């Protein structure tokens, strides 16, 4: 397997606060990798830095073998990595369709763009139904689907998902995770941040456990799930 993302010794600071300390992380093509850990562990900070939203204070990042450490958000998206941010951040006043139009705005081929739009509407029939409604009128789960679809419109090879299940009803959470699994089967590589460890471990190949900005454990999902110690200290109790 080839590595698609390689993060080395990443440090991210907010002024005096160090939110990510010396993190090493890699993702192989075709994998689902989970980043787990309690609230405030630095998960959002880490994926934001990977997506180019926050600068790394120290360390380096390579995507597809190329150094992306100092690239801006826009450039990283254009290279094939897309983040579906925590809290979804859909364009609330724009319609569903307009959200997708902006999502696909880096696509220069008109035909491919239309094709992608069709694909999103097939994958998420509800978005097709609501295509003319402002995004803010969608339910939380629908907004999450829109946020993911918006990310997919840029045809990423690596999709970063920050807490896709946050605040959603269990039935919707299942739906989102099934979708993640489907996307992987279509060949997409996914790095998913979750507090919902049990659900994430059921789908992920490997997991990193973050605590106070540091990786306290990295291993296969089975290993992480089997560790009572990790469950008790970092992952909010029972995992299975």
């Amino acid at each position: 397997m080839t590595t698609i993302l390689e993060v080395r010794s990443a440090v991210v600071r907010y002024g005096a606060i160090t939110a990510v300390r010396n993190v090493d992380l890699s993702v192989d093509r075709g994998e689902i990798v989970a980043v787990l850990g309690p609230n405030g562990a630095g998960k959002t900070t880490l994926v934001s830095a990977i997506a180019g939203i926050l600068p790394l204070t120290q360390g380096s990042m390579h995507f597809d073998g190329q150094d992306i450490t100092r690239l801006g958000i826009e450039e990283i998206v254009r290279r094939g990595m897309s983040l579906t941010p925590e809290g979804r951040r859909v364009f609330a006043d724009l319609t569903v369709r307009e959200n997708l139009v902006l999502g696909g705005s880096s696509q220069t081929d008109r035909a491919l763009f239309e094709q992608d739009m069709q694909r999103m509407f097939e994958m998420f029939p509800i978005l097709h139904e609501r295509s003319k409604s402002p995004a803010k009128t969608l339910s939380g789960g629908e907004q999450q689907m829109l946020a993911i679809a918006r990310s997919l419109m840029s045809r990423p090879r690596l999709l970063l998902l920050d807490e896709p299940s946050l605040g959603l009803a269990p039935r919707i959470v299942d739906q989102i995770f099934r979708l993640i699994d489907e996307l992987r089967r279509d060949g997409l590589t996914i790095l998913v941040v979750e507090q919902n460890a049990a659900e994430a471990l059921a789908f992920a190949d490997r997991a990193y456990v973050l605590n106070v900005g540091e990786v306290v454990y990295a291993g296969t999902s089975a290993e992480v799930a089997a560790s009572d110690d990790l469950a008790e200290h970092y992952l909010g109790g029972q995992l299975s």
Partner: protein
Amino acid sequence: MDYFLQQTLNALSIGGEYALLALGLAIVFSVMGLVNFAHGELITLGGYAMYFTLLFAGPPVALLIPVCILGAMLAAVAFDKVAFRPVRNAPPTTGLLTAFGVSIIIQNILVIFVATRARPVPTPDWMRGNFMVGELSIPVLQVLEFAVTCLALAGLLLLLNRTVVGLAMRAAAKDFVAVRMVGIKANRVIMTAFAVSGVLAGIAAVFIISRRGAVDPFMGFIPLLKAFVACVLGGFGSLLGALVGGIVLGCVEVFLQVVLPPDIAGYRDAFVFLLVGLVLVLKPEGLVGKRAELGDKEE
């Protein structure tokens, strides 16, 4: 009746002019949170672009109109590139001070290298004079100004609703980082906002200059003041607010001009500001307030 109609038309044309200027201020503010106090200088530079074109190239006077609009647009884009981009991530007060700096520098360059005195800029003949509708004599300029304002508004609406960069501008008013997350370049969105504000200022400048018949280095100040007041009146950060604020301000000014006795008509602006102050006491969020669905700024 004749008089009433003429004054209504006068109010609409002045109001339209204020609205164009206020919209330019509002659109830059909504996208990047900057109150561009150098907005008035766009009018000035549009005017001087006409003056210099005439001086050096001597084209037909009508050609000066696109020169003015283009000049103001290029000036706005240049302000962004040269002055505002370097301080984009600085605290808002830095942007504000930069805007004042730009304004002062432009005024002084014109004073030093051109002249403090006003320079004449002619208006095409067809824009002057009146035409008759039955018994009514109607100034061409006013009808034209109102019509052009409506056209500019239609164009703006199309841009904001039908183009990728327009949609991005509306989205950026709320969450700029999310716009960048879909791969749209921040520079492109902000540059477009400035270009739009420049075009709107340039259009207003054509009419402002055809009223005064001349340009001078400080001519941008009063229009800027009016645009700012219009924005505050309508609700700062709101595009609809800028439009409504501009029209209302124009109407109030013309109304006061008509009803005030001649010996205190000179204090008209004081009365206007008093009224605006009153509105803000009663309705602090402005006449329109925030209309998020139009892409208004939300703090």
